[in-house]
């Protein structure tokens, strides 16, 4: 099987995969007696046709960028981190503790502190699976799944028995002090001309973009990144080159977990301004889809995150204005992962066939 041209590999393959996913989603919508065209219109209308919609689309995208980057970094070391969900929840815990129990004079400092807390807690939650993988060869996919559930239980415990303010009924922390309030787009001079009403998208968005750049530099411009990628391609070769597997696995997973945790400054600090149950609400898993769609490249991840942001906001709108249940989001998400992740080979075979066809055509023509 001869290879595909680079552009096809980078752009065409994901595009085809995505189209397939979209087509099937459309069929699903038809199957449940709804009108896909109508659905698209509602989604677009509610998510990108007005500032309000963008406010949410970008808010979701921000979270997905963090989790997507988290998966990406791990991927390059040959590690499949399914634990983003749990790491993001722990990140939320970090943010909550920092915001609630430390006095902050100004949001900028609070942001700094919270980011630190989020990253630390997220990284800590990734550390144990990483260690078990490195030292005892326990399959990181399974351990991270387990840690997602353990995290969920831990959070319930923290929220119900520890952090819930007395007299409050729902399992959530107290509201964070106003000093820790992050400016959302409608409060940022300049942006507030566009975003007039309150939107959840906030300064964290720019941090996410910055992180994408950082990850890119890390992977393709630094010695560490070089070692991470080499290790990911071939462990025996890495050992020959004197790359310490334990070190790489640990560092990579700590970075990955940290990124996943960082997402919490967006949803916990930037939006809810208190820690709620199930705060990550699935963003950790969507990170997988985002990374796969983005071909594990920061640029791709950012684009994929925007797409999923649109999908999420649009999906919410569907649930609101149409008879199509909001779960359609989950279906599309599943399809995207299936086609861009697992059926990658199929799409490639398909395209290579087509390309081969064209080549022969050319030859005949010549």
């Amino acid at each position, binding site marked *: 099987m001869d290879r595909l041209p680079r552009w096809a590999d980078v752009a065409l393959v994901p595009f085809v995969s995505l189209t397939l996913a979209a087509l099937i989603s459309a069929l699903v919508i038809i199957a449940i007696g709804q009108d896909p065209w109508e659905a698209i219109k509602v989604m677009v209308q509610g998510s990108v046709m007005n500032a309000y919609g963008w406010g949410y689309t970008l808010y979701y995208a921000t979270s997905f960028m963090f989790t997507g980057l988290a998966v990406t970094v791990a991927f390059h070391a040959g590690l499949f981190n399914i634990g983003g969900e749990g790491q993001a929840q722990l990140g939320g815990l970090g943010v909550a503790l920092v915001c609630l129990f430390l006095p902050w004079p100004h949001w900028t400092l609070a942001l700094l502190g919270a980011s630190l807390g989020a990253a630390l807690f997220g990284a800590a939650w990734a550390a144990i699976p990483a260690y078990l993988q490195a030292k*005892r060869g*326990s399959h990181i996919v399974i351990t991270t799944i*387990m840690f997602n559930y353990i995290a969920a239980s831990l959070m319930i415990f923290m929220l119900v028995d520890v952090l819930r303010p007395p007299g409050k009924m729902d399992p959530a922390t107290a509201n964070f002090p106003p000093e820790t309030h992050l400016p959302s787009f409608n409060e940022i001079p300049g942006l507030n001309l566009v975003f007039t009403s309150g939107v959840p998208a906030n300064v964290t968005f720019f941090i996410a973009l910055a992180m994408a750049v950082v990850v890119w530099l890390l992977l393709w411009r630094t010695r560490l990144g070089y070692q991470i990628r080499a290790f990911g391609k071939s462990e025996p070769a890495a050992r020959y080159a004197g790359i310490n597997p334990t070190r790489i696995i640990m560092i990579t997973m700590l970075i990955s977990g940290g990124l996943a945790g960082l997402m919490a400054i967006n949803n916990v600090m930037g939006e809810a301004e208190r820690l709620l149950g199930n705060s990550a609400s699935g963003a950790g898993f969507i990170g997988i889809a985002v990374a*796969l769609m983005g071909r594990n490249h920061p640029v791709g991840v950012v684009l994929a995150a925007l797409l999923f942001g649109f999908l999420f906001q649009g999906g919410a709108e569907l649930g609101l204005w149409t008879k199509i249940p909001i779960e359609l989001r989950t279906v599309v*998400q599943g399809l995207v*992962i299936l086609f861009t992740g697992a059926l990658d080979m199929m799409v490639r075979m398909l395209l290579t066939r087509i390309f081969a066809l064209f080549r022969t055509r050319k030859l005949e023509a010549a």
Partner: protein
Amino acid sequence: MDYATLLQLLDSTLRLATPLLLACLAGLYSERSGVFDIGLEGKMLVAAMCAGAVAFYTGSAWVGALAGIAGSLVFALIHGVTSITFRGNQLIAGVALNFLASGMTVLVAQYLFGQGGRTPPLEGAARFNPIDLPLSETLKGVPVIGPFYHEVISGHSILVYAAFAIVALTWWVLYRTRYGLRLRAVGENPAAVDTAGVSVPALRFSAVMVTGVLCGLAGAYMATALQAGFGKEMTAGRGYIALAALIFAKWRPIQAMWACLLFGFFQALATRPDIVEGIVQVKIPVSFIEALPYVLTVFVLAGFVGKAIPPRAGGEPYVKER
């Protein structure tokens, strides 16, 4: 904790362990053949929905169960095609199918019944009702074992007994039949099976299909025996607990049964924190009990409780040409 309470706990342990056991055995076939399957959860969910819906329409739990199996088989087929035919990443495929299931079930159920992703409650023959084993009433009087037989062993739906029968069956198939030998071999070294003139894809597909059937039963049990109808996300992570149990049992059927009973017992305990509190005299947060199966599994994975070595060829698609 008095004997009656213990019996009651064991009774619900049995009920709660059954879906885990069926899913766990399901996973055993797939993974023994070298196809890792973290999509058990999704298959169960789909099966539960199909079973619930069809049982409601036909009023027959049996037809429902068949529908459940069919639904689960469809997903198994996708998993097979993806990871065997197209050599896709088995883990990613599993993740994808779980999302697909979680969304699809609600979409369809909502479309069919318009009850927020539920199926209507099932009654009578639309459910697998408890069956009393012979003599359970008469033996009731016999001290200790009498009540045990009456309360714990007797009075479950047919699927519960089926699940335990399948444990024995699986053991026999795995270690006493030709199919079992080949199954174990293909999970360890597919090239050996291939050069011995046995088709690796066919073998793996068959295993994945068996997985589909058993997940189907697990899901059907959820919707038509344990509960009366399908509810959104009703499997609530049982597929993953089953996976944990499978690792815990190191991919062996008998041990899988014990693992599932243990994890089922934890779930039973989680419904009764008051009992736990009664025993240890301090308030244990329910969430801790709920986390126990996962924590234990991590310990096993870490090799503190004997190393869990998965089938050697597990996870990798079989390719002749490097």
